[in-house]
């Protein structure tokens, strides 16, 4: 989940904060302090997260495009100038722009808005935006809800009392509501000081940036892993099952299946599964990923030399062309597989299927899958030359069963001509002639299209008169018989009705 930090650099952010016995701070310094803490956390614990930095006043500017280089982000924080008034709407439009250009509309993003709760004045102020919210056309739609899955976190450089003294808090709450409730407002508890800002950002980190740790299990083999990005809770049906489902921290492998059998399944999200080394207290030592830091480097080198189940699993899946099915929760599965980057790197990846007993129709119910050795006969054949998948559906779809559709005249004409073509090749084509004829008869009866039956009967009678002298006597016989039967069918209902 990429992050966009949207930093208010309007003049009001330069308001001083009185801190006893120390140099004078401005709100923007508090903001920068909090963001520094966030960036430092990400650099150590969430280093694969892409983050962009946007600053705004009445205009907005992309200071740092999406990057994993937290030094650059940190530097940008110290190079911010002060500008004029707050104009939140245009900044949010800017965020839409930036995210869509980079990630499209399907990747969830987190927007961290840092402001002092002064929402601007006049046109472009948040109050003005909200007041005109109902009078908008498609072309100047309000940017919320964001046109991508999102969370909007509003970090206020103000405490609750201050925000409540005006209508600022209400306005900000409206913003979250407009984003379909996706997000949260954070305010400073108590006086404005570095410590309280830290605790506010600490809450954000706990909520949105704690790494997801799990244990990957396969029989007796286990590995501690970090799953990145964090798997988000999922709601299956808001009405009958409104509680979001959360994935297990014990990820148990329940089976293996060929890539050809699983066949590019649709997934909710995909995640890197990174083995981590834990020390005895259970704290993370590192992901083993090489770093500039020397201490870490040696620790990583040691970690690299300890066999890890993830590496074994990855190698096996890659070579065998298989995926591992993993249990994520009750009636919830995912798959583990080897994913090759464009370069010569490859990785263990996990994709989540939609929760439910049968996430992939072509595999059937997950509960009914089992080891090959459970089957009486090897379903893959002795020479591995067949497969029990995909499962065939009970009923064929319309395109697989030669349905009759006469909505366009061409559909009807094609069907009539097929009969005619075969009629002219009687008696050789008797079988196909009757097959086509019966198909037409069946459909005509269902649609109550009796005139067609009469028409085709007339046509067959005419064909009979046109038969050359050399024609086989059976041809005339079949045509007459067919015409009679069609006529009978076309009047059958009338006779029944009259009774």
């Amino acid at each position, binding site marked *: 989940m990429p992050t966009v930090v949207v930093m208010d650099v309007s003049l009001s952010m330069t308001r001083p904060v009185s801190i006893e016995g120390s140099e004078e701070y401005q709100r923007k310094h508090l903001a920068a302090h909090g963001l520094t803490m966030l960036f430092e956390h990400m650099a150590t614990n969430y280093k694969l997260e892409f983050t962009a930095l946007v600053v705004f006043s009445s205009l907005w500017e992309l200071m740092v495009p999406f990057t994993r280089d937290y030094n650059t982000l940190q530097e940008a924080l110290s190079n911010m100038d002060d500008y004029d008034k707050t104009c939140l709407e245009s900044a949010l439009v800017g965020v839409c722009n930036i995210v869509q250009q980079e990630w499209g509309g399907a990747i969830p993003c987190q927007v961290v808005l840092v402001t002092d709760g002064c929402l601007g004045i006049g046109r472009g102020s948040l109050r003005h935006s909200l007041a005109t919210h109902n009078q908008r056309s498609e072309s100047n739609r309000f940017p919320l809800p964001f046109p991508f899955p999102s969370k909007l976190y509003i970090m206020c450089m103000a405490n609750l009392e201050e925000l409540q003294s005006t209508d600022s808090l209400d306005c900000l709450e409206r913003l979250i509501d407009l984003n379909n409730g996706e997000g949260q407002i954070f305010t400073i508890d108590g006086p404005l000081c570095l410590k309280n800002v830290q605790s506010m950002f600490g809450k954000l980190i706990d909520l949105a940036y704690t790494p997801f740790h799990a244990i990957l299990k396969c029989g007796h083999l286990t590995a501690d892993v970090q799953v990145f990005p964090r798997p988000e809770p999922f709601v299956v049906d808001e009405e009958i099952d409104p509680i979001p489902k959360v994935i297990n921290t014990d990820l148990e492998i329940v089976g293996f299946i060929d890539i050809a059998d699983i066949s590019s399944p649709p997934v909710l999200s995909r995640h890197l599964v990174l083995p981590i080394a834990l020390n005895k207290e259970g704290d993370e030592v590192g992901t083993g990923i090489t770093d500039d830091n020397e201490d870490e480097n040696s620790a990583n080198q040691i970690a690299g030399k300890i066999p890890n189940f993830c590496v074994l699993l990855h190698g096996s899946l890659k070579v065998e062309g298989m995926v591992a099915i993993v249990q994520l929760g009750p009636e919830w599965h995912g798959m583990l597989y080897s994913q090759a980057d464009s370069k010569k790197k490859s990785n263990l990846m996990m994709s989540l299927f939609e929760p439910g007993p049968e996430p992939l129709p072509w595999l059937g119910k997950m509960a009914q899958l089992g080891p090959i050795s459970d089957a009486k006969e090897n379903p893959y054949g002795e020479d591995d030359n067949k497969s029990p998948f995909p499962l065939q559906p009970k009923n064929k*779809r319309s395109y697989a069963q030669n349905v009759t559709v006469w909505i366009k005249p061409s559909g009807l004409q094609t069907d009539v001509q097929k009969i005619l073509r075969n009629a002219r090749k009687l008696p050789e084509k008797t079988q196909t002639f009757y097959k086509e004829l019966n198909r037409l008869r069946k459909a005509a009866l269902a649609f109550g299209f009796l005139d067609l039956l009469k028409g085709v009967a007339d046509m067959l009678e005419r064909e009979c008169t046109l038969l050359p002298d050399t024609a086989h006597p059976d041809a005339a016989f079949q045509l007459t018989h067919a015409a009679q039967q069609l006529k009978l069918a076309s009047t059958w209902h009338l006779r029944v009705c009259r009774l």
Partner: protein
Amino acid sequence: MKIFSESHKTVFVVDHCPYMAESCRQHVEFDMLVKNRTQGIIPLAPISKSLWTCSVESSMEYCRIMYDIFPFKKLVNFIVSDSGAHVLNSWTQEDQNLQELMAALAAVGPPNPRADPECCSILHGLVAAVETLCKITEYQHEARTLLMENAERVGNRGRIICITNAKSDSHVRMLEDCVQETIHEHNKLAANSDHFSLSLMQIQKCELVLIHTYAVGEDSLVSDRPKKELSSVLTSEVHSVRAGRHLATKLNILVQQHFDLASTTITNIPMKEEQHANTSANYDVELLHHKDAHVDFLKSGDTHIGGSSREGSFKETITLKWCTPRTNNIELHYCTGAYRISPVDVNSRPSSCLTNFLLNGRSVLLEQPRKSGSKVISHMLSSHGGEIFLHVLSSSRSILEDPPSISEGCGGRVTDYRITVVPLASVIVKESLTEEDVLNCQKTIYNLVDMERKNDPLPISTVGTRGKGPKRDEQYRIMWNELETLVRAHINNSEKHQRVLECLMACRSKPPEEEERKKRGRKREDKEDKSEKAVKDYEQEKSWQDSERLKGILERGKEELAEAEIIKDSPDSPEPPNKKPLVDMDETPPVEKSKGPVSLLSLWSNRINTANSRKHQEFAGRLNSVNNRAELYQHLKEENGMETAENGKASRQ
């Protein structure tokens, strides 16, 4: 996302009164004369469908599309109305298919134009529709049972699509009132019967879609009206539509609205011409599917941000370009959604060509036409067991790009994830062992001792090994350590487990002569190491990525190993032991259903064992050899010539 929305239950109420037997006054030519045979023959007069036929075929088309795209959980109940209501099917899943409906319709037949119009009314059908909406479906029942005390969360909503020929706007209002009234009554009934019957539910929401249809050329006596709320439960909309293709078009639009469908046109499909087999022309095929398959377009389509909107507003169909598939290589695409499709024009030649192509197991990637000329693959059409799905492939930048390679992480520096082949491993993990199990484990251990004595290579997978692996005696040392760890981990299970360990420990304390023997064997071993190394080096040069090629190489590697095996057994080898395959298959119990989970190790081992045993058949001559010398053409000494031919065949294998 709601499972039990209005589209869970659709009731069709089609008017079967005498006036529906009237012609729609739209002619269909059906006697299209074939060339060369037209002289002097006057084609038969065109025919026209009745209002009934038009209504039925349009509603069948609605159902066809719905069943194709939602084969489950979207249900139709079909009612025809004349002097009474005829309910043609039920909510059960078995009743939900075109064949059932068509058969039921054939039994009903067209309306009788001579019936008494005074006795006939659409009202019977509408009342029956409300009744049927109160009936619980098997899905609702299942959900209620599952939710237990939260059963009230299961909604009961539905839609009534009524096709009739109304007399006036006030007639329409009368129909609406009737539905309104009936819902009110039935809801009361259902509320009271809640404790007695589990099969009825109150209607929470009902959407009435009234379609007034009339012959082409007539004036409509009924005016269109958009959706209006008549009560908290009932909404109603009125469509006044000419019969014939207009009605079909209307129902096609409605099915798209009701089930959130969208349309994609596949363009540039190359198709062989019937007449000129060598040429191919390009065709377009329009498909319907759930609109989520367009989620990326929808989001960027309605971008309010100036300038970036490429396509303008969301068009009625989105065009995607066919990319001629290369070979059938199996790839795991990153797919964010898969949606069933239904061709708009199911019987047209281009449609059936496309669907047959896909049903035969081919997949087609689809490309977004972009002005910039860059190629973006955004979708894939693929069939899974007779069902065609439109897969949405991720085409935007990945948030997981440039990830750390697995080789840089924990355990990434370990090159030797060997897997030793021991049937013991699958047995020892059991909670209790039989005498036979113990015997099997002991056999395995003796077998390993034997292998070590003969200095046979351990059947190690070269996969994942980089550089030169450890020497053979080192391999055996590691193997024994691993085995000991494994067995020790289970000795607390039973006394029999303990016995396996004792056997193992006894075997590990090897006699000193073993070392001596090793040294003698060294020379031979070096030779093999070289050949193994060659295989490994070869692998290293190859890219990790092309797994297909990698597989091929591995196959070859295995073959080479097998060859090395044979070469080793040259006449000057010291005292040839009876040659056995890598693993003694006789002593490996077949993969039996063991109580515990089948371990990765034993799965792998069994696979390798079977693969290897299939690789070669021992040369009959060597099996029967004396001092490794086999006498060739023994049979020539005998008289029969037939046997020569047979033997020749056999030895070629």
